């Protein structure tokens, strides 16, 4: 059905996102575009383990934070380039994901979700009381010369945007590739029934582990970028449940288990939260989440497949005739 189109919808989405900051020169808008890419990308990463494989993680801030802290600590203490820090952060997050989730995969359903929540909180507490990483005070990243090597840019936000766009594209394409291939079929089979999946030869533990590791690796990359962009991190910013929950909520709103879901969700939530912060300031804190909460309730009641489900329904109506023929 997609083949009739001239361009793959993903290409159109990429193109639109890429040109937007060059059309609108507003600095706030650039900031929102960067945050949008970070959260949409985190949503894509989270979607691999939760949307595809059905293992609900409420602790993805842990991987995001590990990515942010690894590069920041290496830069702050040893002046190692954030790019090297990003790679080490990815490796570390992947390792933590493997070690931590392996025993958790024995837990089913809600218990797995609770375990991820608890683990993320434990990691946050460790960072709060860890002196080498400046504990609860957090780290102000030393301002260095602007340039790609230091991943610091002081005159324009566009370079940050381009880096965010690159990592976002990698996340989307990774999720897309997984979805279209054997691993995607296997992860969805695991989501829909572990026993059925095992019976047809799927090593469910192995595939869940792969999915979690890929998901953690992508999340960590965004962590490094975020730290370099804000130039200050503390455990309450990067390891907070707010981050984990935003990832969950925007993906659920957009459409769980679809590569378009996180993009749609982030396109709504991020401008909403950034603009309420800009216009309402400190007094408006939480207004975005109130509106977003209402949206989630509406989606849960009327369209459990997320906003994407509304589009799908429209498509199905168009193809209604074929569908009816196929079912009889």
């Amino acid at each position, binding site marked *: 059905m997609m083949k009739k189109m001239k361009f793959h919808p993903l290409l159109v989405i990429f193109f639109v996102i890429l040109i937007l900051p060059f059309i609108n020169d507003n600095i706030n808008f650039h900031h929102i575009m960067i945050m949008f890419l970070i959260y949409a990308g985190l949503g894509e990463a989270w979607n691999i383990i939760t949307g595809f494989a059905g293992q609900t993680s409420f602790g993805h801030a842990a991987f995001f934070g590990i990515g942010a802290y690894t590069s920041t600590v290496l830069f702050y203490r040893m002046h190692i380039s954030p790019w090297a820090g990003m790679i080490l952060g990815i490796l570390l997050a992947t390792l933590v994901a493997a070690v931590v989730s392996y025993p958790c995969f024995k837990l089913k359903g809600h218990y797995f979700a609770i375990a991820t929540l608890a683990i993320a909180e434990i990691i946050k507490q460790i960072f709060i009381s860890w002196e080498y990483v400046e504990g609860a005070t957090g780290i102000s990243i030393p301002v260095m010369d602007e340039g790609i090597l230091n991943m610091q840019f002081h005159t324009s936000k566009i370079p940050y945007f381009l880096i965010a766009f690159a990592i976002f594209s990698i996340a989307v394409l990774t999720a897309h590739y997984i979805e*279209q*291939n*054997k691993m995607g*079929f*296997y992860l*969805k*089979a695991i989501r*829909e*029934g572990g*026993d*059925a*999946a*095992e*019976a*047809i*030869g*799927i*090593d*469910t533990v192995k595939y869940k582990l792969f999915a979690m590791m890929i998901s953690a690796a992508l999340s960590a990359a965004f962590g490094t970028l975020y730290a370099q962009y804000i130039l200050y991190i503390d455990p309450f910013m990067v390891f907070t449940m707010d981050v984990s929950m935003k990832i969950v909520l925007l993906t659920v709103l957009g459409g769980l288990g679809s590569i378009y879901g996180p993009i749609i969700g982030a396109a709504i939530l991020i401008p909403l939260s950034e603009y309420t912060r800009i216009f309402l300031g400190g007094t408006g804190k939480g207004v975005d989440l109130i509106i977003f909460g209402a949206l989630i309730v509406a989606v849960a009641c009327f369209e459990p497949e997320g906003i994407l489900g509304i589009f799908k329904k429209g498509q199905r109506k168009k193809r209604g005739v074929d569908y009816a023929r*196929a*079912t009889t």
Partner: protein
Amino acid sequence: MPEPLLDVRGITMKFGSLVANEDVTFAVNEGEIVSLIGPNGAGKTTLFNCITGFYKPHSGRVFFNGIDITAKPPHYSARLGLTRTFQIVKPLKEMTVKENVMTGAFLRTSGKKQAELTAMEILELTHLAEKSDVPAASLTIADKKRLEIARALATRPKMLMLDEAMAGLNQTEIKDAMELCLGLKRKGITLLVVEHIMEAIMPISDRVVVLNAGKKIADDVPENVTSNEEVIKAYLGERYNAKSKKS
């Protein structure tokens, strides 16, 4: 005598104080259709679960193709060529019929095209081809049972274990299922079938293994099993057994 394809030796499985399988030993040779029958609660499904690794038996061993598969995870036996279906069908609901079968086919290939070809071939064989793009959740129970078999077949098994694949089907559908079993046998697939519908399985089985209260009470060709006194007693109770003795 050649080594049996599936060799079950002295399987005992307990749930607390309940003994679901007690020292069950039997074998299935390559190319055979063997059925496993017994009254409700005889331990047939438990035995299936022990063989395929969903349960870890208390004692006893299972060999497939000479390889010890006792207490190995189910995906391990599937990879060796021993695939099962479930009595309570487990379709991958949000996937289409074709995607369900492709998921099975991915066991022997990583290529999407190849998996699709295998899936289409098997959908033809199981009469599901015209429903290939329908979501699995919207199938009728008969089609879900077919899909269960189709998905298992897509893994290219040497041996297929069917757990009550015919239950709940009407007469014509049962005929189809019998034909399918015989067709699979001709293709060289060994079958172990749990079934309640005697008239369906007696004609197609090479051998029948009877379980009662967890123990094996008969293991013979269908003709001998139907006249076996202990089997009649298990199915009909003491009184009818006494009557049959008098006559």
